């Protein structure tokens, strides 16, 4: 599949000198989208976003325009931007927050304008100290520039924006946990249905939650029109998207490419992108969309970076992070490490996730350390099945939020794809990879 020469959108200013400053931002066309949006009716902004078919970049891939249209009537309404990025191997928002904060602010204000929000909050992962500093500095500048605050650019639209630091909990990336956390509470996800944030969100008010990358696309979409965005990509997967590539590739990094027109193989092998697997090794498996996603093997490497295609193949594009594992990788260890992540990050609210994650972690660790039993493989599946009944895709769940059914992904993929390797661990009491 040939790479396209579509120009990057959200990363187009990264690499500019002091790209995080207002002056640099303005020198490169900053705040033009907002100026244009201020001349439009809010419904028309939403219409452009609907036309663009911009899919959420946070993981669930829901159409942003559709979400906005579902916002319940009672006011006030709030906009919350999700910059909690903690999905393992995802590092695109981190880059955007540090290097193009004004773009996020501009996108946020456009979103708030379109939905008529009373206030907007940008929730930044607490660990991103530099990101928080850059965002805060940018906000100060943006206020001074008149891009945020009262009567933005002389219009009658006013909005206050708050940079809200998180404090270290993966689950706060889940939108309802994020809202709880923003309300100053423990990050326990809320049960949905019945109430989605667009109906009952922050302070019980209708709330739009969008990812940092999602809103970073808005200035461009408003400036260039939704149709221009929709012209990129194929089908529902429109525009360009940042993919975080890591693991055993020669050139790990964030790459913004046109959706659906680039394959995993392109991403991994193209010299301008991943540059191939290190040491010329062979591909053993890859994770197509963050630690929550089931794994793919070499057979799926020619799939396009297309949300629906990946979904149909039994996994997800998720947060857009691809982890490449070469032939030297111990799959038991890889799966165990991801399991341990979920164990550590389970909020603890619901029983199957709280207890199941710990149990799975312990079994996986036992196998990895060579103390496993053959029956453990069935046990793993049965425990997983009690968290995500049927172990089907998309998963069903006995839990409150989808962290629960994400836990089995690496275990079931690992065992299904590399059963022999698991059995070797059990039988030989050791890891063949040392």
């Amino acid at each position: 599949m040939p790479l396209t020469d579509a120009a990057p959108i959200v990363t187009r200013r990264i690499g500019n000198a002091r790209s995080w400053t207002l002056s640099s931002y303005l020198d490169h066309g900053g705040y033009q989208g907002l100026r244009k949006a201020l001349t439009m009716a809010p419904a028309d902004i939403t219409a452009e976003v609907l036309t663009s078919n911009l899919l959420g970049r946070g993981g669930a891939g829901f159409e942003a325009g559709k979400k906005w249209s579902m916002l319940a009537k009672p006011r006030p309404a709030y906009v919350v931007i999700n910059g909690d990025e903690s999905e393992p191997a995802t590092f695109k928002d981190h880059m955007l927050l540090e290097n193009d904060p004004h773009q996020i602010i501009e996108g946020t204000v456009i979103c708030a304008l379109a939905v008529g929000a009373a206030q907007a909050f940008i929730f930044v992962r607490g660990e991103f100290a530099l990101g928080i500093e850059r965002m805060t500095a940018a906000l100060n500048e943006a206020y001074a520039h008149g891009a945020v605050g009262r009567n933005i650019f002389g219009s009658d639209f006013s909005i206050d924006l708050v940079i809200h630091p998180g404090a270290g909990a993966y689950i706060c990336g889940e939108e309802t946990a994020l809202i709880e956390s923003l309300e100053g509470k423990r990050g326990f996800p809320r049960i949905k249905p019945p109430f989605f944030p667009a109906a009952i969100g922050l302070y019980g008010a209708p709330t739009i939650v969008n990812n940092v990358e999602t809103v970073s696309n808005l200035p461009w979409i408003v400036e260039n029109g939704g149709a221009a965005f929709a012209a990129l990509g194929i089908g529902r997967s429109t525009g360009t998207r940042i993919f975080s590539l890591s693991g055993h590739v020669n050139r790990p990094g964030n790459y913004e490419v046109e959706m659906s027109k680039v394959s995993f193989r392109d991403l991994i092998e193209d010299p301008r992108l991943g540059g191939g697997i290190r040491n010329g090794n062979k591909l053993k498996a890859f994770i197509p969309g963050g630690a929550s996603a089931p794994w793919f093997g070499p057979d799926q490497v020619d799939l396009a970076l297309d949300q629906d295609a990946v979904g149909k193949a039994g996994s997800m594009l998720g947060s857009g992070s691809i982890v490449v594992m070469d032939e030297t990788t111990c799959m038991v260890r890889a799966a165990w490490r991801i399991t341990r992540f979920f164990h550590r990050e389970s909020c603890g609210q619901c029983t199957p996730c709280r207890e199941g994650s710990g149990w799975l972690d312990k079994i996986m660790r036992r196998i990895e350390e060579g103390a496993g039993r053959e029956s453990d493989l069935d046990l793993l599946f049965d425990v997983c099945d009690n968290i995500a009944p049927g172990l089907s895709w998309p998963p069903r769940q006995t839990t409150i939020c989808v962290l629960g059914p994400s836990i089995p992904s690496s275990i079931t993929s690992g065992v299904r794809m590399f059963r022999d390797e698991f059995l070797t661990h059990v039988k030989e009491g050791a890891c063949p990879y040392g």
Partner: protein
Amino acid sequence: MAEQTENKPDTVTITLDGKRVTAKPGEMLIAAAERAGVYIPRFCYHPRMRPVGMCRMCLVEVKGPRGFGLAPACFIPTSEGQEVVTTSPTVKKAQDGVLEFLLVNHPLDCPVCDKGGECPLQDQTVAFGPGETRFVEEKRHWAKPIALSDLVYLDRERCIQCDRCTRFADEVAGDPLIEFVGRGDSIEVNTFPDQPFSSYFSGNTVQLCPVGALLARPYRFKARPWDLEQVESTCTMCSVGCRIAVQSSSNELTRYLGVDSEPVNHGWLCDQGRFSYQYVNSDERISSPLVRKGDELVECSWGEALAATAKALESAKAVHGPGAVAVLGGARLANEDAYAWAKLAKGVLGTDNVDAQLGDGLPAELVLGLPRATIDEACAASAIVLLAPDIKEELPVLYLRLREAAVDKGVPLVELTPQSTGLSRYAKASLSYRPGEAALLAKALVDGATGDVAGSKAAAVNGARALLGDNPVVVLGRPSVAESAASITAAAAALAGLPGVRFLPALRRANVMGALDMGLAPGILPGRVSLDAGRDWFSSVWTTLPTGAGLDAAGILSAAAEGRIQALVLLGADPAADFPDRQLARQALAGAGFVVAVDAFLTESSRQADVVLPAAAFAERHGTTTNIEGRITSLGQKIVPNGVSWPDWMIAVELAARLGTELGFETVEQVWDEVERVAPSHAGITCALLADRRFRDGVTAPLGAAPPAITGTGSAPAPRPALLAFSGEAPAVSLPPLDAYSLRLVSRRTLYGNGTLVQHAPGLAALAKSPCARANPSDLDRLGMGKGGQVRVRSNRANFLIDAEPDPGVPRGSLSLAFNSVDLEGSDAGALIDADAVVTDVRVETP
């Protein structure tokens, strides 16, 4: 009402396991199913708290747009046409899975767990569980039980993180002092280090805990559930009348559990009530009658004690007339006891010097004569006006109900108070008044204020007035015992002028309302009639009647102090501790000719008696009691009386016999039959009605226009007298001027104090607070004691040293001293108060 005009259907029909079932719209599936006879297992769900859907035990299949899916029945509201399956293999697998997960980190130490035998986790594991554990790893470990407070211990290894205790503390009690700490499977419930779970309601968490994680310290290792027998009863530690289950093992009380009574306690209890069973078990109970031999009280037979008592009563009456006999107390007795004693005093001895209250309550005509509201009516009123003591301290479960009304239902609370209370933070308007000026403020609230009044700003008063609506309920009691009853009566008279107003009495002693209903107050007769109005009627059923209205507690004590009372009967009353003017009470006990104490314990007062008659305690006898609403509920007997103690009514019967009269009953039921027959307010409330399970929450007297469908057995000779109605007349109160150097005293009770019962319950006695004077920071600043410290408090009665603390909740110009602190010998509010004065002014000096 706005909600009712909306066109919502009353019921919806759902399909539950193939059967059509009707449910209330919006009610949670788990509750609808339960009513339809389908019990869905659960741990975190509790019908009295917000659902959280956390434990996932109640997963069932609910049909959605994409077919059946698992959903928590505790979090899914019913809706028309909903299809639910609770028994499919998918449901069974999910529930078994949750159960197995819950046991992963559970220590499985059932044999040594207090909860063993009544543990839903244990029961469900036995009933449905997978049998053997597949979990071979190391379990989570926590240090074994930690003390969350003096009363509650926590074994964190057993905790299943259901959020019940923490939700209760936050949502119901309003004391979020226990919280989830940590994340994931290392979540524990805990307090902030060094800040214990000192909530008046902490014991509820033990009852709520679905496993054996939370333990009541007084109950730990005391009994196994299968050894316990139980009877339902009503708590008599205060006058709210919470329903309880009394449990015992080998004739010893082991614990009380809250029973969910819809109109009253919703299953909750305060810790004072919950742990009060300890006093019944106390070694210090009087187990035999005592007579005075010189300086000592010595054990004697019932015959000797009764003879001595009868002789004293008879000679007092014979020599000095019926007015030389007086009866104080009775507010802690059962209705039947109160009636028997009222009949003995008024109908046999002919004295009207009878008062169940000890000068810390309100006049009977006022309390009985005002239009009454139930707790439910108060909670659904247009506004709740509080002119009362600190409800949290004196009627704790009423506090929970009122707090819920304010917080969850948005009923405005308007408080008229001399000092902030436990409800102040929930009040829409908290109007403070200077002691003695309650009536001024009440009048302004009714008529509107044109200027500042009694220390409150006009705007605040008028703002509060705008909140009242068209059917407010006034919760009425004595905000401070250092302010005369007359002052509050005048205020109540003013509030009675509010359109649509009703009153909920906030008098604290357990059965004070029953005692008043039974006639234990001067000027009234059983059944809420005045002595004058009831004279003809009662002449036909009683042998004698007092000739005219007698003395109230203050009058009785003054007369005794002056040597005009020859025989004083104390019915479970301890005036030396409870009467606001301690000096007068002591003089009275010394000055009375002969003192008879009917009591379960020796108190400061009963120690001075000439005869002490041992009374059966709570749970040692059955009968009925009446709460603040006028709700009559049963008292159950669980154990046999201590020693040779008798129920109070029986003592009255025996005394009457020795005085040559038959009271006319041999069983408690016969007493009640007579009450139903003769007490006008109680007509139709028969034993059969009270025993009917349909009325297990009790019935309020008088029965409404449509009495329950059970006919009374008694038929009384007509015409019955009319029930008391408050005349609306207010006593004139003249307030002495306050000099610039004095502070006006406010004195209230706290929950745990020097009371006899609390002091004989070891778990509670330790919680009593030590004495402390509170004043507005600016008043202490004036003394150069802004941070507090020791001060000398002086009234024209007494002076003493006491610790003072700044408290912005006390208005300027006032000093607050708890009335029932422990260890106060001689240095308490009671020493300062003059029963004759409207207010007590004190000076505070640096020592």
